[in-house]
């Protein structure tokens, strides 16, 4: 029903546009005076008045609808039992809504519920009707007001400009508010988590086994369960181990690819090779995941065993290696662009001194392109740290504190997935631990970006 209403409002807006334009045309021919704006701006003037406030009203009503319905429908229950829990309220409401739709999930329905169902149907219909009346009359009335206000000296062009300014501003605000929202939702859950588990245990503890929190006899949480269950050091170590392995693959291969593409490859070759390499970044990470788990991991295991190492079938090395392949394009593509944009005059200066191509690359081009290259490295690192699927599939889930690349390892992101898969208890420290991990990851990535910016800034100042 909401969609139909929106369509109606838009129709009023479109109609308003036509009327506004028509009035402007009339004004123009009737008066000898020049009117301030082009005809269609008067159309937009009415359309904006018709559409924007009425849609805002509609949004406001929809936002409060749920609350009004709940208060009205549940009033009888609350009279009976003023201390009704939020979860029980939700349960009751779900029962009422389902019954009103003819879905009978419950054996017997209490007369109170039957009453409530009637009330529910009544209030829903009432609100729907009211919404229509209010929204449509707002749209209609404001169109009328706008129509009356159109005179030859009304600067509707300026009005449209300011409206667009507000529109653009609001859109950019959406992105900013989302970021702020994410930070706060992480932050509050994290604070709750740290109220149960000391932050020092989390940051410096060596043992990660959140599943222990559920192994308990009584219904209450045993504080002993919380001890030694949320030490995140193994996760940090695993994350950095795998990211390190990935960078060991991606940096040399990516950088040398970039050098080849920028300096040695013919323009033709570069034109088709670069998109193909960039495809690597477009392959879904799940696909990399089973490539890592089914192809690379066995190879790593066999090679390692032949060389006399004990290798588990899920290893940090396999995951890190495949992740490294995945982020090659991040390094190569960006570095290639940066090397390419080093001015030709520097190349010629170096050749004119009698330097060979590789000497020029090593001694002039790479130093000149360094800020951009480091930027590409850091981008690749944050990608590696945030990567989840490959690790889930190829490196295992065991939170072991190890620096041995042949061992299974796990990362922050993987543990978030593990924690949040399946049934959740939202107030359990286990679930909240995921938020703490998320916040940690967020802070680390933020720091990396900050460092990247500083590095780039420093070198750009020096070399430009």
């Amino acid at each position, binding site marked *: 029903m909401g969609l139909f209403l929106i369509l109606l409002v838009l129709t009023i807006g479109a109609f308003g546009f036509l009327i506004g334009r028509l009035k402007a045309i009339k004004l123009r021919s009737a008066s000898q005076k020049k009117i301030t704006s082009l005809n269609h701006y008067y159309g937009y003037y009415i359309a904006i008045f018709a559409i924007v406030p009425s849609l805002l009203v509609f949004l406001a009503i929809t936002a409060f609808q749920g609350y009004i319905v709940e208060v009205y429908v549940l009033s009888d229950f609350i009279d009976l039992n003023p201390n009704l829990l939020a979860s029980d309220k939700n349960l009751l409401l779900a029962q009422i809504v389902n019954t009103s739709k003819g879905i009978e999930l419950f054996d017997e329905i209490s007369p109170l519920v039957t009453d409530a169902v009637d009330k529910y149907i009544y209030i829903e219909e009432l609100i729907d009707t009211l919404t229509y009346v209010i929204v449509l009359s707002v749209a209609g009335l404001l169109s009328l007001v706008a129509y009356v206000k159109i005179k030859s000296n009304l600067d509707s062009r300026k009005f449209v400009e300011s409206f667009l300014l507000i529109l653009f501003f609001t859109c950019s605000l959406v992105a900013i508010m989302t970021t702020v929202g994410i930070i706060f939702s992480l932050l509050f859950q994290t604070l709750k988590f740290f109220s149960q588990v000391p932050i020092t245990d989390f940051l410096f503890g060596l043992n990660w086994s959140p599943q222990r929190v559920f192994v308990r006899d009584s219904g209450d949480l045993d504080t002993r369960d919380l001890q030694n269950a949320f030490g995140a050091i193994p996760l940090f170590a695993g994350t950095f181990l795998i990211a390190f392995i990935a960078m060991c693959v991606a940096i040399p291969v990516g950088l040398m690819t970039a050098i080849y593409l920028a300096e040695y490859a013919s323009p033709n070759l570069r034109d088709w090779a670069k998109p193909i390499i960039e495809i690597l970044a477009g392959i879904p990470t799940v696909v990399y995941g089973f490539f890592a788990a089914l192809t690379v991991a066995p190879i790593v295991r066999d090679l390692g065993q032949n060389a006399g190492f004990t290798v588990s079938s899920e290893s940090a090395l396999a995951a890190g290696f495949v992740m490294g392949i995945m982020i090659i394009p991040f390094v190569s593509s960006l570095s290639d662009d940066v090397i390419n944009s080093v001015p030709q005059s520097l190349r010629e*200066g170096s050749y004119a*001194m009698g*330097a060979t191509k590789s000497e020029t690359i090593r001694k002039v081009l790479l130093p000149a392109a360094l800020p951009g290259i480091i930027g590409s490295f850091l981008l690749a690192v944050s990608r590696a740290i945030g990567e989840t699927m490959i690790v889930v599939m190829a490196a295992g889930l065991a939170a072991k504190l190890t620096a041995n690349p042949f061992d299974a390892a796990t990362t922050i992101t993987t543990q978030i997935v593990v924690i949040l898969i399946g049934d959740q208890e939202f107030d359990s420290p286990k679930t909240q631990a995921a938020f703490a991990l998320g916040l940690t990851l967020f802070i680390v990535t933020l720091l990396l970006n900050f460092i990247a910016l500083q590095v780039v800034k420093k070198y750009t100042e020096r070399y430009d």
Partner: protein
Amino acid sequence: MNKIKISAKNIDVFYGDKQALFDVSMDMYEKEVTALIGPSGCGKSTFLRCINRMNDVIDICSVKGNVSIDGHDIYDKSIRVESLRESVGMVFQKPNPFPKSIYENIAYGPRIHGIANSKTDLDEIVETSLQKAALFDEVKDRLHQPGTGLSGGQQQRLCIARAISVNPEIILMDEPCSALDPIATAKIEDLMSELKKEFTIIIVTHSMQQAARVSKNTGFFHLGKLIEVDSTDTIFSNPGNQKTQDYITGRFG
């Protein structure tokens, strides 16, 4: 007259299908300044870049004909282009110091060619090169600061110092003053009259006054052809060709 240092014979240069130079033959003399003048796109820079084979860098460019330095064909297969460029330095239109310190800019060439045996040697080369380029006094306190922080004129002198650091015999200058103000230009011109005692200098220039001031011989290029080459005095006072006459009197170009 000094002995012939560089001799170009029947040079044709092609960029892909387009011919940029037509049958250019010209001799240039040792320890003199030779100026190449002509309107934009006339091929004077292309000709200059034949002398240190900088045209090799451009894939689609091909050179026919013969350039010899001291009688040796520089396009011969036995010639290593790196050693050729060691003895034929080049200064470009826009100052192009490397994004390194002043010291490292000068030390670049000697390091590549293994000219300095020790740190002291290198320090000495850097100092003499800067002195020869009349820059040492201005930068001696900040040798380890970036070369890109200098003014345009200083940067160009740094590039000259860089070119002479490997002790070349010839210095090619491709419009070295076109990006500089008159004062910096005057300094470079003074420098050239100093440098010609030691080096053979070929300069491409847009400014006829500059050619008249600094050079002993001048070649006039037009539409890829060498129209006339003679002593600078003759070219500017009594040119043999009508086109030269028109160009230097400002009737076209």
